[in-house]
């Protein structure tokens, strides 16, 4: 069964460094999302992406964050200058179409900012 994959599974970085989290959505899906989950807290929406554009973003998704679909398969989340409070699990999700309600989540990248 097709699934969303994410790399790396774990990332440790120093405060102020840039990180890029990578996702490969399910191949025929058109809508892509990033969510984060701080340890012990709820899953929070960051950004949605469709047709090579951001569709919607939350207040969390400030100028330090950016997303890109550099080729036909990858979907990346970049954090330009990481802060301690960026430490969290980051989940990528995709769905097939506008009318398809189910989002399929990847296994996540655990980011630790020191």
């Amino acid at each position, binding site marked *: 069964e097709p699934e*969303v994959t994410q790399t790396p599974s774990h990332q440790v970085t120093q405060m102020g460094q840039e990180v890029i989290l990578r996702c490969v959505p399910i191949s025929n899906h058109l809508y892509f*999302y990033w*969510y984060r989950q701080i340890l012990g*807290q*709820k*899953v*929070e*929406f960051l950004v*949605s992406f469709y047709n090579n554009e951001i*569709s*919607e973003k*939350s207040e969390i998704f400030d100028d330090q964050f950016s997303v890109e679909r550099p080729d036909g398969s990858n979907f990346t989340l970049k954090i330009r200058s990481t802060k301690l409070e960026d430490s969290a*699990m980051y*989940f990528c*999700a995709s769905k097939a179409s506008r009318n398809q*309600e*189910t*989002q*399929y*989540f*990847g*296994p*996540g990248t*655990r980011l630790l900012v020191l």
Partner: protein
Amino acid sequence: SQKIEQNSEALNIQEGKTATLTCNYTNYSPAYLQWYRQDPGRGPVFLLLIRENEKEKRKERLKVTFDTTLKQSLFHITASQPADSATYLCALWASGANNLFFGTGTRLTVIP
């Protein structure tokens, strides 16, 4: 303010019993509501979806109800098994929005 609350942080039940988890929301107009399972260190896995005009949905041992008057969804697992132990998340897709809003989750433990 908008809130999605799940009744308890943790729920312990005996194997074979029915687990009932509650999701309440305020100040949302959901188009639909979903339930996910999340195991430690893993991403959410979709279980069931129920639309605003539906009262109940079933899938094998799972049942979801949706009451838009009470602004509440109930999630039932019948004949629970230790393998059902996980955190269960409710998430709603608000009308006019473009993303899911998640509840805080309930950690279910099924005791053999």
